[in-house]
């Protein structure tokens, strides 16, 4: 989450306003796709397991084929719960988890009220009812359009319920390393070193080398000293810089 993330400032009792970083269409879509997969899997798993069990108890067959004719028990115990799992997933899970869902947790976002507090049950229900409109004409087209066009990145359901989707929390790991508290490295450089080390496995060799050399120059190492070093050596020196800064506290 960067400084460019739009924020909503909310008054608080301490006089220091609360900054709520607003999540945009990307985080919303990611959370929705994850939740959609979970709904589909849960609904299909219930349907499949239920149908197999029903057929086995009825005929002794292990089969996924739906029973022929109208079987009220099968419809009531297998089909109806599967449909309920699919269609009622969002309202029920958001109510139980107070504005969160597994997809939203993975995306690092949460639904809150406009004052930054946990959204109430009524607001969460209204928010979910308006999915009927937000999903028009196809695939949440209207909802995504509203998220893109509104300043607070809200869809129709959020407008109706007075809720916002915000990013939840930044990680403490990158902010709190020994080097940031020691004083021998400036905070910005210490945080950059910590972030580079955290992202090291995901970067290409060329990117690692370029970034490591830039940071080590900022830490006072000479270009001649760092130029011939390989990937593993650069990483080792970055870790030593962090430890050395911490030891000098």
């Amino acid at each position, binding site marked *: 989450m960067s400084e460019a993330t739009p924020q909503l400032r909310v008054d608080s009792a*301490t006089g220091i306003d609360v900054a709520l970083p607003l999540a945009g269409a990307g985080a919303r879509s990611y959370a929705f796709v994850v939740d959609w997969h979970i709904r589909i899997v849960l609904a299909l798993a219930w349907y499949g397991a239920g149908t197999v069990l029903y057929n086995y108890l009825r005929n002794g067959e292990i089969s996924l084929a739906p029973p022929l004719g109208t079987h009220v028990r099968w419809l009531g115990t297998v089909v109806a719960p599967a449909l309920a799992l699919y269609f009622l997933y969002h309202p029920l899970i958001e109510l139980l988890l107070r504005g969160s869902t597994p997809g939203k947790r993975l995306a690092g976002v949460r639904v809150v009220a406009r004052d930054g*507090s*946990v959204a109430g049950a*009524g607001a969460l229900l*209204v928010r979910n009812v308006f999915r009927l409109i937000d999903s028009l004409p196809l695939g949440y087209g209207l909802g995504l359009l509203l998220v893109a066009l509104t300043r607070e990145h809200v869809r129709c359901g959020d407008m109706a319920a007075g809720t916002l989707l915000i990013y939840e929390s930044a990680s403490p790991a990158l902010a709190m390393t020994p080097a940031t508290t020691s004083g021998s490295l400036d*905070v910005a450089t210490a945080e950059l070193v910590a972030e580079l080390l955290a992202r090291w496995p995901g970067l290409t060799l060329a990117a690692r080398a370029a970034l490591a050399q830039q940071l080590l120059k900022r830490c006072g190492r000479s270009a001649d000293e760092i130029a011939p070093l390989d990937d593993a050596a650069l990483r080792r020196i970055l870790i030593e810089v962090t430890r050395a800064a911490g030891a000098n506290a």
Partner: protein
Amino acid sequence: MSAEARQSALAHALLKRAGAWQEAEARARRFSRGRSDDPVEAARVADDYRLLAHDLARARALLPRSRARAYLESVYARVHATLNHGDWRLWATVERLFREEIPASVRWLRPYLVWATLLFVLAGCAGYALVARFPELIALFASPDLIASVESGKLWTEGLLNIVPSSVLSAQILANNIVVSLLAYCSGFLFGLGTLYIVGLNGLMLGAVFAFVARNGLAGALAAFIVAHGCVELSVMCLSGAAGAAVGEALARPGSHGRVAAFRAAALRSGPALIACTVLLVGAGLIEGFISPQPRIPVAVKVAVGVGYWLLMLALLTGALWRLPGYTRRARRSDS
């Protein structure tokens, strides 16, 4: 000491409190997930709030573009949310919803209810007049099977239970009705035009079908079929339309508030009425699946069910259900 060195020293001194921030976050998480109800810890959360505010003010000045500041902002927001997190008890919430919020919502919707009902009735009369004058127009509102059935002297509802079991029929009907009701509410977002369309169309269809059925001498049979569930179903249609109209009016004429604020206020205020509509439609669906199509149940019983359920609906929507002597005595006993 230079100003730069002083700033740096202050920043590093602030960052040494990182452990306290992490503890504050962990405490806030425990409370927000209901994993703690220790009053001493709760008091510490309140202290955390003040101390975090103090640290955040310093971080915003000393470390404006740092990750430490971003982390502190998120911890502060989390503690703020935890402290402002109202107590949520399921039964108390449901009771308050039905005892206070639904009646208040319905009272507020009264003017819109009058207009929605008027629209529905007028559309019904228009549909009736249209098909009575031009019977061939029934093809716009009814399926070929229904038309053929009525023209052969039988309602499409006869023998329904031979094809579909009652439970399945109920489930299909109540699911359909709930979706239509919610759509009538949500489509108020289109400045009320969507709501007017849904309420008007439903009225038109009902009037048209009635005219066609009456033309074929089956009006009495249709009325006997509808009476058990129709009173409540049609009332709920009008109530959903009223809720949608309220939302639409808030968007079209927001008054002194902004359009979004007016929309939000109207949606939240009319929302409880939709919950009542959903509950009532479940009952109506069960009646329509189990009682209405049942030829062995006398018409008098169906009328009694229809009137009784409609009176129950009134009691629910006005809050009269909670003013019954038995309930009031129980409520007083539990309060003392």
